[in-house]
């Protein structure tokens, strides 16, 4: 495996609807931003691409990826699409990593997009719910917020997690977003605000849930040699991991926790795992990524995390999967402020999906871009203020997650020398 670097990134502002631009133009905007950030990079130097988008239903266009490829002027270079639900962006990032790491390419562009405003929200819920078993699950009342609600009901039952703790995730992420001009819903919230917003699926309210959006994001990855030519602030990708779990929540088994180095079997003697309260794929993805990066205690060795907070509940569940705290301690982790900007490991300093929005194929790459700027120390330059800059950020993790934890991709990024 060759070392792989991220050398540039760009992201459009995610909006509830951007009818003035189609997916090609949105990617072009993010791509041009990334190209401008590394003026030495020319189209000729790009060896190929990976496209990230989730749903052909939303786009009403099959093979949308190739239309982006030609719009960017990158034909006839190699390209392909990767798809894995909500984790599509994270998987795409890793596919680009593979292209460089294997030596197949020296510069690879990962681009992602989704245009979800082209149908109304109810139809969009339907499209997303079609990513559940259409024999047994979808027809019963297919609705992803309902699925996550059932998962957190069980988390609350097993561990005593509270709706107030979930609300604190919403408060934190919408609050961080106040300093992120790319975020579509910066808000100063209280627990009361979150709990009194419309109930969607008990116990999740509207403010516990991210917004379907239009948007695009681009990450440019390069070999060590090319990275040195392109930028004096490269960011090294030191670990990648992916995990999976059964499509049907009904099928999630009851076994043992795959332990991280800082955990012991005694921590989880009576825990039936993962059941539906935890994401086994998230633990697997984290474990693999940490092993590659040589991380033995993530809480001590990560300076920040951008994780997939499609729901406040899934952020809490993900703290545990990623080993930032033990299983069962996620609610207290946010309550005690460990995930805040000033906390032990700021989680979603960008505002995350909750405040930035979730145009599925762009989301995982957006996380890569924000993490890249954090590690470059260029938050001031790109966001216009440095309130979200994690001081001396040396190493961060990005975490991309698909429906109820079916596919999860975790990547570890580190400031280059």
């Amino acid at each position: 495996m060759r070392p792989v670097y991220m050398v540039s990134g760009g992201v459009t502002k995610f909006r509830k609807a951007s009818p003035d631009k189609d997916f090609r133009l949105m990617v072009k905007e993010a791509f041009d931003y990334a190209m401008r950030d590394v003026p030495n990079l020319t189209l000729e130097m790009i060896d190929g691409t990976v496209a990230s988008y989730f749903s052909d239903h939303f786009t009403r266009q099959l093979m949308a990826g190739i239309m982006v490829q030609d719009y960017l002027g990158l034909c006839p270079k190699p390209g392909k699409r990767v798809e894995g639900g909500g984790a599509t962006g994270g998987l795409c990032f890793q596919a680009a990593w593979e292209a460089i790491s294997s030596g197949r390419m020296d510069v690879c562009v990962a681009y992602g997009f989704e245009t979800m405003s082209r149908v109304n929200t109810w139809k969009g819920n339907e499209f997303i719910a079609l990513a559940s078993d259409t024999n047994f699950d979808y027809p019963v009342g297919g609705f992803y917020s309902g699925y996550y609600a059932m998962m957190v009901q069980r988390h609350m039952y097993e561990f005593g997690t509270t709706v107030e703790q979930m609300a604190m995730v919403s408060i934190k992420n919408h609050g961080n977003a106040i300093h992120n001009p790319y975020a579509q819903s910066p808000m100063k919230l209280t627990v009361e605000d979150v709990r009194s917003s419309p109930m969607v699926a008990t116990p999740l309210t509207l403010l516990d849930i991210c917004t379907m959006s239009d948007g695009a994001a681009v990450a440019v990855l390069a070999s060590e040699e090319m990275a040195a030519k392109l930028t004096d602030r490269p960011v090294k990708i030191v670990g990648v991991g992916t995990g999976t779990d059964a499509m049907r929540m009904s099928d999630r088994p009851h076994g043992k926790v795959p332990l991280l180095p800082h955990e012991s079997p005694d921590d989880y003697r009576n825990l039936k795992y993962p059941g539906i309260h935890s994401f086994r794929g998230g633990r697997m993805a984290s474990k693999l990524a940490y092993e590659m990066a040589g991380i033995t205690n993530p809480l001590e060795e990560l300076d920040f995390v951008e994780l997939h907070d499609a729901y406040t509940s899934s952020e809490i569940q993900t703290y545990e999967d990623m080993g930032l705290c033990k299983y069962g301690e996620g609610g207290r982790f946010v309550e005690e402020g460990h995930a805040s900007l000033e906390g032990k490991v700021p989680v979603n300093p960008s505002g995350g999906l909750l405040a930035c929005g979730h145009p599925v194929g762009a989301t995982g790459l957006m996380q890569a871009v924000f993490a890249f700027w954090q590690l470059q120390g260029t938050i001031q330059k790109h966001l216009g203020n440095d309130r979200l800059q994690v001081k001396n950020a040396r190493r961060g993790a990005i975490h991309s997650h698909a429906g109820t934890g079916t596919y999860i991709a975790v990547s570890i990024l580190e400031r280059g020398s």
Partner: protein
Amino acid sequence: MAEEKVKLPETEEGTTVYNLDPIIIKYHYEMNYIHSYAQDSPFFAGLSKGKLMGSKCTACGYKYATPRSHCMECGAKTEWMELPLEGKVHTFTTCYFGSEEFLDQTPFTLILVEFEGVNTLFLSRVIGIEHGKVHIGMPVKAEFLRLSKFKPTDVYFVPA
């Protein structure tokens, strides 16, 4: 020789336009699938006879409440097995919003049902109880539609 002018015949149907800058129009799209339940078919046949059919691994004995014809644990073939018609609520949620197809049914309560001695769960709806009163561990029993639609909603649960 005079050239004959060729014209496409005009039609009267129009386009629904929502906006002019940019132009946003309505684009209708629908389809019928020829959907096969394939190896899952006996489950749906079971519903029409008032039976809940799960599956049991012929090699390791793992029992599935939502059937599958091969075992997720060991890969061996499973055999069909009748599930008990009573179980307990493993988890639940009441949906006040939803997908377009189910929007007119809100609020509805989804549950995952656990059955004694069976390793996996079953997704269904519970009725006959106030939405706020459903709880984990609550005993429930299966009821079936008299007129089967050969959908998983042919079965639903009520408090036992």
